[in-house]
């Protein structure tokens, strides 16, 4: 290396990471300064008091705002999970592997897809009807998301308890059709027009069987309040409305497949016929909205099926008699130990119990699997102990807080139905549009009406002669 070369000077400036850190530091310092000033001058506590006072007075509104925000925030991760499920499940059914590079087992693939969609250029094609074109994705997205407000996720955990919950649900999801038509019409494109009209025709045809299919449940429950409907299905599994209204369940599920725009009724994105249907002229995040709306729609229709027919957040097993028999009460009591009376032995719990447990489990493993060394069995024992303790704590939590159990059961059932939707997508080809309309108007709707009549008749008979 020749001595004549001088090292190039480093460019003056901050690296990107440095910029982020500096910005955060500035924010933290400014916040600390503001907080100090507010506290010192006495404005802070006054303001806080005022906030608490108005909050208490308007607790309902605040609760509603919190519920709406929660619901909106919930949709995006739910959509990501459903997209990942779809990618992986369909891949397995196609004898493929699916995404497995981004994240462990490809779990970040849908997140990356979302980020990619976000990073695309946001353009408006020439000739479109700009306000309608811009608002269409918002309408479709909101129509799907607004319905989440009334679904009871767990006992005591619905966004808003409405007496007319079911009516509100169908009203809100019906607005989606307007959004589809807006998207198809405003794009300056014959393909989009055709796609939009086809999609709207499909959705409208199947809304009637969808709604009529639920009338049987409403008649049996006597209310439109979704929370009440779920409560009616408490207890053992045969209380679920699925066993009292099997035809309605089938009708509802088929109509829900068409409502969500899933194969075999996926005219919204019949990509072997009309490339991208009504969303041909959309790209970037606008298309992302349609995409999300579809997956959220899938989720809420599954959630509604679960709520109406499959017992909502109830496990289907009436565990109280069993627990009573075993002498266990909920919430599970851990005995009447007063922590204060332990004295210095209180320290034993966090410092002695974990190492003893780990050593015990590792010792067991080392004795059983003698070919593993001490280090390996210690590591495995550590992991295993964590898992065991976590499982124990989870069991305690689940049985103590029925909301947690309810939440898990609800999500399990909903995602199970979503998996059924995904399975149908992988298996079936598409139904032709006139065959679809035929099926909806000539078969499903009469079947739904028949179901209502039979249910009503049965209720009257039972009431007259058996009670």
């Amino acid at each position, binding site marked *: 290396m020749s001595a004549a070369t001088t090292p190039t000077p480093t460019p003056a400036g901050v690296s990107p990471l440095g910029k982020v850190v500096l910005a955060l530091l500035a924010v933290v310092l400014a916040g600390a300064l503001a907080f100090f000033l507010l506290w010192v001058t006495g404005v802070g506590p006054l303001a806080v008091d005022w906030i608490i006072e108005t909050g208490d007075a308007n607790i309902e509104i605040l609760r509603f705002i919190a519920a709406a925000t929660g619901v909106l925030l919930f949709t995006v991760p739910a959509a990501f999970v459903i997209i990942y499920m779809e990618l992986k499940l*369909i891949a397995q*059914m*196609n*004898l*493929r592997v699916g995404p497995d590079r981004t994240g462990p087992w490809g779990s970040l693939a849908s997140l990356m897809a979302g980020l990619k969609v976000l990073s695309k250029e946001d353009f408006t094609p020439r000739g479109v009807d700009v306000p309608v074109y811009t608002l269409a994705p918002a309408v479709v997205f909101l129509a799907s998301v607004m319905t989440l407000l009334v679904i009871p996720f767990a006992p005591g955990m619905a966004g808003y308890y409405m007496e007319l919950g079911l009516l509100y649900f169908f009203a809100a999801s019906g607005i989606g059709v307007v959004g589809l038509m807006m998207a198809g019409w405003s794009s300056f494109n*014959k*393909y989009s027009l*055709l796609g939009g009209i*086809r999609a709207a025709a499909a959705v409208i045809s199947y809304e009637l069987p969808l709604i009529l299919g639920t009338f049987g449940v409403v008649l049996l429950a006597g209310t439109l309040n979704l929370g009440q409907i779920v409560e009616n299905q408490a207890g053992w599994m045969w209380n679920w409305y699925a066993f009292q209204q099997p035809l309605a369940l089938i009708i509802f599920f088929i109509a829900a497949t068409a409502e969500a725009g899933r*194969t*075999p009724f*996926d005219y919204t994105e*019949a*990509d*072997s*016929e*009309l*490339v991208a249907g009504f969303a041909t002229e959309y790209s970037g995040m606008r298309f992302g909205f349609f995409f999300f709306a579809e997956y959220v729609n899938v989720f809420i229709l599954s959630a509604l099926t679960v709520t109406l027919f499959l017992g909502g957040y109830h496990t289907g097993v009436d565990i109280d008699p069993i627990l009573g028999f075993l002498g266990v009460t909920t919430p599970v009591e851990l005995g009447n130990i007063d922590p204060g009376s332990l004295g210095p032995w209180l320290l034993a719990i966090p410092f002695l119990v974990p190492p003893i447990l780990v050593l015990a489990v590792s010792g067991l493993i080392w004795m059983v699997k003698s070919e593993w060394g001490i280090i390996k069995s210690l590591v495995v024992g550590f992991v295993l102990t964590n898992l065991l303790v976590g499982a124990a704590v989870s069991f305690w939590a689940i049985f103590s807080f029925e909301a947690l159990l309810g939440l898990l059961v609800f999500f399990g059932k909903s995602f199970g139905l979503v998996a059924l939707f995904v399975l149908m*997508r*992988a*298996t*079936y*080809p*598409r*139904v*032709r*549009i*006139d*065959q679809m309309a035929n099926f909806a108007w000539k078969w499903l709707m009469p079947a739904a009406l028949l179901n209502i009549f039979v249910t009503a008749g049965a209720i009257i008979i039972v009431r007259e002669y058996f009670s």
Partner: protein
Amino acid sequence: MTTPREQVRSLDDPEVMVQTPGTIYDTIPPLTPRTEREAEFYDVGDGEMLVNLGPQHPSTHGVLRVVLKIDGEKIVDLDPVMGYLHRGVEKICEHGDWHHAISNTDPLEYAASMFSESLPVLSAERLLELEVPRRAEYIRVLAWELNRISSHALFIGWLALDLGGITPILYGFGERDEIVEMLASLTGQKLLFNYMRIGGVNGDLNHDFLSRLGDWMSRAGARINDQATLMNENEIFVNRTKGLGVVSREMALQYGMSGPPLRATGVPYDVRRAHPYSVYPELEFDIPVRSDGDSYARYLLHVDEIKQSLRIIDQVLHQMPDGPVMAKLPRLLRVPPGRAFAALESPRGQYAVYAVSDGSDQPFRFRIHDPSFFNLQAVVPLTRGHLLADIMAIMASLDPIMGGIDK
């Protein structure tokens, strides 16, 4: 004729861009119609719309553009526009050797290229009256039948994909993958094999190929059955294809169709039996024939043909003789003057060549008759009056491949 130089406008001249009306390349050109049919087609009635099923489309089996005149969802008329994949293969063959023609005709039927590259081979052998070694003939039949199976597996997948089912094509590709790997160990290529030679084949079977073939034969039936079961009884699939695109016997003969679309109408015309070539007379197989003539019948026929091909491969493996795989030919091959029409049965129909030789080492005229060209013509009368979704079902069931149609 070559246009005289004075009439040709060079693209380097900027005036050319200004003078050329852009309308000649419009998607739906308001151009002055050149023929009666064009005038009739572009005369758009009240409420009708012209839509492009454009050259870029997932379901047109290549770059095919179909201009549709639709009335709502119903198709009133169609006008297929081809030529996006035209490579001038016939002209190129006239300027190269007879041997060069083998590589030039390879990409014509790219899904099953052993058939298209056999065209110059068979025609030259007929003109030379060459005796091909028997082992080479048997290897050729093996290659042909393997290509037939892989092409049919792909056809079933395409048909399902065009109708919206995304799973059967991956099963088909799984099957095709194995066959193609086998042929890669035999020929060195996976898609455009370049394996046939005038007088034989390029290289004998090797151990890797035979072991893969044996493995595959033991499992082949099962996966095809899987793929077929997924679709045969599938209510939605049957409703989409049954009674659709019905081709009558007269129509098939008038349109010059061949292959599965012709056999699905009840005409038992298979080139392997009607004009036997190679060692097919010594092999035992049936010609599946159905009489419905609709898309569903064509689909079932493809599945039947796969089973027959498996039978043929079995016999070939048992009867394979020993010997050389290539006949002795002079270095500079001059084909004696004459005219020959050589035909073979490809997965899509009758693949034929009309070769005219003038005694030199270049073909004088090398006319390639592609079955998809004639089969695709039927799409126009079959689809009129049906819905937009039906054009996929009909076109896919006729199994066109644009490489051959556009040459």
